[in-house]
């Protein structure tokens, strides 16, 4: 079995394993023995273990596929790029030139992502067994202390751990679908499926009004971006007649040469496609659903809303990279720069542990999007990988805190380092990886160090190549200082000082089921970007898959030039980037510690501004936009529909039909003999016409 057939088979198996466990749980949970409406705790636990086992299988298969790829492509240093393994599995529609089918487009990015998704998902599966143990009450009933019935009593409901694992399996399957998809349509299908499973997972505690609202909000906000994606799909199909990535990428160059004046159309398609990424990756202006999505259980926040699903937008942008013109990339970069600053500013003053991390996720996604916009394909995808590991670790540690201290409010936590030493260490490592701690001169650091430095290199290269490109340098620099500030603040408020509530005073360390996945993620967060002997590293793997073209045309409007990644790796830029990143981080760290000494960390000076932004301005803007939309809709329905369509066209059509009917009704005299005359006349006329035409035709022939 050679690699080009082995790899798709392994990937297919890894992809379908979660679907299988989804189906098994769906069937099993309807036939299982129930106690008072709840699946028996032992059965629910067995279901969770089955799902975890299937996910472990999936992870091993993905890892095997990655190993087979490395053997095929021979990664080491700057290895020659290996063309992707592409093929078709199943055709859904084949009409004319439209052919929609499920297939695979496998390159190093696909395999790295598949391994990453299954790895994080596996950790989450194990962790959730400990985190959600109160779903496994002996009598099968759970009292939800955050949801009240109409009378004011707490909601008591059957435990639903099995549902949680069912949704997780569906999510993993959908996410892997996006990763292997070989055309835009297939990507879109699984794009919507992860949206649906995200809805189910955010709304896991659907008795809580906030959770139900957050789930609906996530669904609705994402629809806005998806409209853009649909427009892009239609446009791409009409321009190129295909939706498959490989022919699309091949068609771009010749198409631009043949239609040099139509590059704007391609820019439009690229920006429209990026709209989908704006929604899914919570970029400005569609970010507000992500902080609310923290209403879901913390394992979900770790897997879906920080490590994988929200990174799908970045993945999509990286996947369709050859389609993006320089103008489209400028839009991407601008959105990323705004988002990374916005997320960081909001994270600085958020008062809830998970909310800080949510804003941090938004900010980090902004970094990735900015990097893609500046031409740093490898830098961004590497940051995607490293961010997934350390942010999942941070979330799991936050979950351990919430599980142990029964609160996520930064004002009431504190002093947990004595009670939860392991969680404290995990959070510390995660925070260090987030700020990109490392030794610039030796080039050794935690995972975030490598990816963040590469992003800075790209930013410096870009701002040097473009006059007026200084913003591309200052946005990530200020962002890095803010990142260091908010994560130091988070750690100090949670673990340092003295406990500020009874919950924190009586906090307890988590059990093994939660600590083991945290340890696995901790190792990954430290070492995922390291280079193995022989030159094998995530960086080299991704570099070999890079879809960034050597040069990029199509900058009609902004007149930017996108630097190549090789140009950004110049020694001098590298050194500058390392020191800038370190300097900004130290500034942020010192500021946070200084504020801590002054005792103002829970309420930093910027808090009032940021809170006003978070709680007043942004919702006000959202409301204004929603109000404007509603007004437009109202005007359309009131004036356009009721007046123009109903009273105008509708009444006209009705009058036409009525008067036409009245005229024609006069023919219906009811006189049989007249009918006969008309009938005969008609036969004579039609018959003689037909005869005459036939004769002429026969004579002509």
């Amino acid at each position, binding site marked *: 079995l050679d690699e080009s057939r082995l790899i798709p088979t392994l990937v297919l198996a890894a992809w379908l394993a979660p679907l299988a466990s989804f189906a098994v749980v769906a069937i099993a949970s309807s036939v299982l023995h129930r106690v008072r409406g709840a699946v028996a705790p032992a059965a629910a636990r067995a279901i969770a273990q089955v799902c975890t086992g299937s996910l472990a299988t999936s992870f091993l298969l993905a890892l095997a596929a990655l190993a087979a790829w490395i053997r095929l492509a021979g990664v080491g240093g700057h290895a020659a790029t290996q063309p992707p393994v592409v093929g078709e599995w199943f055709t859904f529609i084949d009409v004319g030139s439209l052919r929609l089918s499920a297939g695979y487009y496998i390159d190093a990015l696909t395999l790295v992502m598949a391994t990453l998704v299954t790895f994080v998902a596996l950790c989450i599966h194990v962790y959730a067994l400990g985190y959600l143990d109160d779903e496994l009450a002996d009598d099968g009933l759970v009292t939800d202390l955050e949801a009240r019935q109409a009378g004011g009593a707490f909601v008591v409901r059957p435990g639903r751990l099995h549902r949680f694992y069912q949704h997780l399996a569906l999510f993993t399957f959908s996410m892997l679908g996006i990763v292997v998809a070989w055309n835009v349509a297939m990507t879109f299908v699984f794009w919507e499926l992860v949206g649906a499973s995200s809805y189910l997972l955010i709304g896991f505690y659907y008795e809580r009004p906030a959770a139900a609202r957050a789930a609906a909000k996530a669904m609705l906000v994402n629809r806005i971006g998806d409209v853009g994606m649909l427009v892009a799909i239609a446009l791409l199909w009409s321009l190129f007649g295909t939706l498959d990535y490989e022919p699309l990428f091949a068609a771009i160059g010749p198409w631009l040469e043949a239609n040099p004046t139509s590059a704007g159309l391609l820019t439009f398609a690229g920006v429209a496609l990026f709209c989908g990424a704006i929604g899914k990756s919570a970029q400005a202006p569609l970010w507000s659903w992500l902080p609310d999505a923290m209403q879901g259980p913390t394992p979900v926040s770790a897997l879906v809303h920080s490590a994988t699903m929200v990174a799908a937008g970045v993945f999509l942008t990286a996947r369709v990279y050859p389609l993006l013109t320089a103008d489209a990339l400028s839009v991407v970069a601008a959105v990323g720069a705004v988002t990374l600053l916005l997320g960081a500013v909001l994270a600085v003053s958020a008062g809830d542990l998970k909310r800080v991390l949510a804003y941090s996720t938004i900010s980090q996604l902004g970094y990735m999007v900015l990097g893609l916009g500046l031409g740093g394909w490898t830098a961004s995808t590497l940051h995607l990988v490293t961010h997934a590991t350390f942010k999942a670790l941070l979330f799991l540690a936050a979950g351990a805190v919430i599980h142990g201290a029964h609160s996520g409010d930064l004002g009431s936590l504190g002093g947990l380092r004595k009670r939860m030493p392991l969680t404290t260490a995990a959070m510390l490592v995660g925070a260090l990886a987030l700020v990109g701690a490392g030794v610039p001169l030796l080039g050794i650091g935690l995972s975030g160090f490598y990816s963040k430095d590469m992003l800075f290199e790209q930013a410096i290269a870009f701002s040097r190549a473009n006059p007026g490109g200084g913003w591309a340098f200052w946005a990530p620099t200020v962002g890095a200082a803010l990142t260091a500030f908010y994560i130091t603040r988070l750690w100090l408020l949670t673990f340092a000082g003295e406990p500020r509530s009874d919950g924190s005073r009586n906090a307890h360390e988590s059990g093994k089921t939660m600590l083991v996945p945290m340890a696995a993620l901790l190792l990954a967060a430290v070492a995922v970007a390291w280079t193995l002997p022989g030159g094998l590293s995530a960086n080299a793997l991704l570099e070999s898959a890079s879809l960034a073209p050597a040069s990029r045309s199509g900058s009609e409007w902004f007149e930017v030039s996108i630097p190549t990644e090789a140009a950004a790796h110049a020694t001098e830029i590298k050194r500058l980037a390392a020191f800038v990143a370190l300097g900004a981080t130290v500034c942020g760290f010192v500021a946070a510690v200084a504020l801590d000494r002054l005792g103002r960390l829970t309420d930093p000076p910027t808090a009032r501004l940021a809170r006003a932004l978070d709680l007043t301005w942004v919702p006000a803007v959202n409301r204004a936009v929603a109000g404007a939309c509603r007004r437009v809709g109202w005007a359309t329905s009131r004036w356009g529909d009721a007046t123009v369509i109903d009273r105008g066209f509708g009444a006209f059509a009705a009058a036409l039909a009525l008067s036409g009917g009245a005229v*024609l*009704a*006069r*023919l*219906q*005299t*009811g*006189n*049989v*003999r007249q009918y*006969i*005359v008309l009938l*005969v006349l008609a036969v004579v006329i039609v018959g003689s016409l037909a005869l005459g035409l036939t*004769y002429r035709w026969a004579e002509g022939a």
Partner: protein
Amino acid sequence: MMAHHGPFAAPILASLLSEPAGVAHYMAVGAVLFTAGVMSMAVKRNLLGVLMGVELVLNGAIVNFVAIGSPYLRGDDASVGLDGQLMALFAIVLAAAEAAVALGIALNYYHTVGSVDVDQATQLRG
């Protein structure tokens, strides 16, 4: 040679009287029967008269069938020559059935309207 008056009519009609009896003569009879039937359907106010017109129309068609199908009249013996007669028999049987139905309708009409004048049937006027 005669002047060319039209695609069909002039040479055929002109020779009808001088030729021995052939297909054309029978078809002329059929045409007369057909026209008489249509005329009586259009002009007669008595429902039974209209029915008779229908029968005449059918008979005109049957005469045409027989004439065109007959090998003797056409002067060739290429076929056995029973197609036209068979068709005619079919049409006669069908005409009998149709006459039964039509008489039933006529009877009902008389019961409903109280007359056999077709001009009084104006209920379906638009």
